[in-house]
């Protein structure tokens, strides 16, 4: 039986035990001996909706985003690719069936796209040479490995329908559909068990990590040549891939999932402007300049259009371009409307939710879920006291049941309070000019701060950002939460990140060029 006293104990013990973020790993020192990464356990990874649509785009030029529109939504952890949350369902299998039929029919009917499926001119419905060539070449791209000849036989048997229909493409559509419903298309299945992955499994690891899509021809060629089994080969391939626009798309999405702004609640015009701003910073820091990653959080300029300039109180630049943050206290991505829009509640900011954001996303700490006999939904309301938000929250925290966690969350969130849920600057509560917002916040790890610019600066200077971004990247890469068995890998990658100039793409290259990237763990791993 649950009682209020028991709840109190849960709150206090949960928060005091778990809520503090992990301590900083020791900074890298020159001459440190690097240790090898250990192969991590993995599982059947179903393509996320985004990956599925990317794959269809790269396979047959499909751009209508059918998986995004027809399949059940992915679970966000905050990333969309955690395989431990992926359960098969009739909705998934039926949806994949509908998508396969529609996508193949549309591509075969389009003379400019048909050659992406059928690489040859068939002499007639019974041209088995051309049909087998189609199965082999399209099958390679869809299943992301060469097909064995008995496998080609089984798919090629569907050519009997071409003959019966008197139409070569009739059987092609069936066989191509079968490939798109094959579990080795829908899932990334690594069959090695333990030990080295196959060359093609490595190719898929690379392409899905860096592009969120299938390998291209060059990567298949590398795989066929055995290049991807070597660290240098993987590094070279990844370096080439990072220059492709698909990499920018993928890692912009990574940041949007991590920092909570993939979904934004505004008009599409404002949403687009906010996404463009944050993507421009990723492009600048990570890709164009290969700068110290901490600049993501300290950049003194930003890429905005008139819509966002109005939002931020900056001079309208005419067309979207880089402008200085001068005259404001904004710096870096935490000052973007995108990040400031995330974690809002009730069309106002929620200092509690923003506290959770800082605690879990920026410091990679843990906040235990509230006990179920504490109501968490309602925001602190105006009781008999002051209408000001800061006072209402303080009153809330005077309730001992709430205080345990909220004392450790709200003071963080109030440090962003001068920026509203759409990133606009303010100094008083909305509609309550008597309620001054100080914008003062504090975390035990970073100390006092005022505003997102200063929070970003302190985070960048704290030595904590490196471990946290490494952890987020690692989770996204391996498709699950890290566990204790991943700690050594995280520490090693963080140390290298610190030692090598904190270039984000170097972190990716370190990961892909590790032996672990090309291996399944030994049994039981």
């Amino acid at each position, binding site marked *: 039986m*649950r009682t*209020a006293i028991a709840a109190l104990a849960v709150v206090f013990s949960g928060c005091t035990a778990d809520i503090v973020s992990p301590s900083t790993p020791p900074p890298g020192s020159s001459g440190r001996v690097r240790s090898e990464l250990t192969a991590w356990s993995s*599982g*059947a990874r179903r393509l996320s909706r985004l990956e599925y649509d990317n794959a269809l785009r790269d396979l047959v030029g499909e*751009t209508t985003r059918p998986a*995004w*529109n*027809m*399949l*059940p*939504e992915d*679970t*966000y952890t*905050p990333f969309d690719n955690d395989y431990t949350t992926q*359960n*098969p369902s*009739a*909705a998934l*299998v*039926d*949806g994949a*069936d*509908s998508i396969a*039929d529609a996508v193949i029919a549309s591509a075969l009917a389009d003379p400019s796209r048909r050659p992406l499926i059928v690489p040859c001119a068939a002499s007639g419905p019974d041209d088995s040479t051309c049909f087998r060539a189609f199965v082999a070449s399209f099958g390679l791209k869809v299943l992301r490995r060469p097909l064995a000849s008995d496998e080609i036989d089984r798919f090629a*048997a*569907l050519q009997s329908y071409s003959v019966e229909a008197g139409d070569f493409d009739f059987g092609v559509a069936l066989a191509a559909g*079968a490939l798109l*419903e*094959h579990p*080795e298309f829908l*899932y990334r*299945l690594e*069959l090695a*068990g333990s030990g080295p992955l196959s060359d093609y499994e490595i190719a898929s690891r690379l392409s899905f990590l860096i592009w969120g899509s299938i390998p291209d021809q060059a990567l298949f060629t590398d795989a066929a040549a055995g290049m991807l089994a070597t660290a240098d080969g993987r590094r070279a391939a990844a370096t080439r891939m990072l220059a492709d626009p698909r990499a920018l*798309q993928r890692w912009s*999405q990574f940041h949007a999932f991590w920092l909570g702004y*993939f*979904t934004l*609640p505004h*008009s*599409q015009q404002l949403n*687009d402007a906010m*996404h463009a701003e944050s993507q421009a910073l990723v492009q600048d820091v990570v890709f164009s300049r290969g700068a110290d990653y901490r600049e993501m959080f300290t950049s003194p300029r930003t890429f905005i259009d008139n819509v966002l300039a109005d939002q931020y109180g900056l001079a309208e630049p005419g067309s979207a371009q880089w402008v200085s943050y001068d005259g404001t206290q904004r710096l870096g991505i935490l000052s973007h409307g995108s990040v400031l829009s*995330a974690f809002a509640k*009730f*069309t106002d900011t929620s200092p509690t939710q923003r506290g959770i*954001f800082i605690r879990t996303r920026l410091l990679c700490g843990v906040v235990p879920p509230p*006990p*179920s*006999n*504490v*109501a*968490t*939904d*309602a*925001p602190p*309301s105006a*009781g008999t006291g002051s209408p000001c938000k800061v006072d209402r929250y303080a009153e809330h925290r005077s309730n001992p049941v709430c205080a345990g966690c909220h004392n450790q969350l709200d003071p963080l969130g109030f440090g962003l309070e001068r920026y509203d849920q759409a990133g606009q600057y303010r100094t008083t509560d*909305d*509609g309550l000019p008597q309620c001054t917002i100080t914008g003062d916040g504090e975390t035990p790890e970073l100390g006092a701060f005022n505003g997102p610019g200063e929070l970003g600066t302190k985070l960048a200077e704290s030595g904590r950002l490196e471990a946290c971004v490494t952890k987020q990247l690692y989770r996204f890469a391996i498709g699950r939460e890290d566990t204790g068995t991943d700690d050594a890998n995280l520490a090693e990658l963080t140390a290298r990140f610190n030692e090598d100039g904190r270039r984000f793409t170097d972190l990716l290259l370190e990961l892909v060029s590790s032996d672990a990237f090309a291996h399944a763990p030994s049994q039981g791993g």
Partner: protein
Amino acid sequence: MTMFRAPLSRRTLLRGAGVAIGLPMLEAMIPTRARAQSASPQRYVVMFGGHSLGCDGTTNAFAPNAVGPGYDLSPALTPLGDLSVQNDVSVISGLKVPWAGGGAVPAGGRPNDFHVNASGPLLCGVRASGALTCNGPTSDQLVAAAIAGSTTFKSLVFRAQPVHYAPFDFPGVEAGFMSYQANPAGGAPLGIQPVVSPQAAFNSLFSGITTGLTPDQIARKNLLLRGKVSVLDLVGGETQRLVPKLGVADQLRISRHLDEIRELERRISAMPPAVAGSCQKPTDPGMDPPVGADDTDTNNDQRLEFPGTAGTSNEDLRARVFCDLITMAFACDQSRVASLMLTEFASAMNVQPFAGFAADVHFVSHGRDGLGGTVELNGKVVSWHVKQFAYLVSRLKATPDGAGTLLDNSALVYVCEGGWGTDATGGTPGSHSTENMGALIAGRAGGLKPGKHVAGAGRHPGQVIASAMNAVGVPGNLGEVQGNIPELFT
């Protein structure tokens, strides 16, 4: 007695001599039930909306003032009048899911935290335990087990709101689940992933119908159907080859995937509905409205990095198509049971398209915070949900079935996440709670006598659901909740 005779499936014929293709329906192919003159099957629908009924703690836009027949239509209930179904729908107000307060969670009740405990007590009648799930099977699955018979789709599980929109706020796919089935392996019931694509639902229900096609087109379609079965045979076989090569955890998941492929193959192989009388092929809904794109968005296809995320996906159209598909699935006896989730628990769907104000459903339920006029606004949100229910009622009412209409042989129930008024969660004015909950029930199956307003007087919404279950011939209670609402039958 012919009731145990297995009808010839169309696949049997198709696998036999090709000459059978295009022949008129053989009597032996028509299932026994379709020839029975007297007993139309019973149909069951449970619909859900993730909204509350009030937002300022003291007033609501839902409950009529008068009790009994000829009740007055509150602002939220006006769609019942607009669609001329008021006499086909009963309104039950004053319902309540009991809560723990400071003590143990009562039977059919919830711990104090409202949202995470909302699903189980409401939809399966079993007390919640701090997670948004059901600790027992939901009514649609209980009913399907009893009345689905040999229908191709044992139950339809649909959701109009396709995505969560604000994943940081209320995480977990369970916010989008309203149907749970008993776990054959024991343990907690399994949530059923709803179909969110009207296009996919249409394809799986009705793409096999050949009415209106030329003989050539029919021949080609039949060939395609055979081809699809071969494809799924092939994919199933390839999957089976893979399973032994996988680790234990993956074996389980991929085996489940294989089960679903086999299920799909079974459904595709099943005889398509015989188009006659009320059973007609519905209009192909075409491509689904873009997910997350508001009405002003003309750029969704070009937006590669961040596809539409504006908080609406034309749910109005999606709900209407799902209601059309349910109606025709019933008329064609493709299925007899459906659940339709209009909006998710604590729904983050933007109400702008129908309420003229940019805010999400959940927020509107909290309306008192700096908004003003919120009872009216929340009334619009409730009304939008009621409209979808009323639309389905009107469709069933307009569809002949046996000697009457589909509505005469159906029981439909609508429940929503929250009521209005203060509850145990304390000092807040109770912007939403499980006090003063409401439900709608429609249809005349099993002696239901709709068209009245019943004061619930603290009874459990699960009793309304049980009334609908009882009406379609499934006796007993919903989970731990005892009894039904007798006034609904008198």
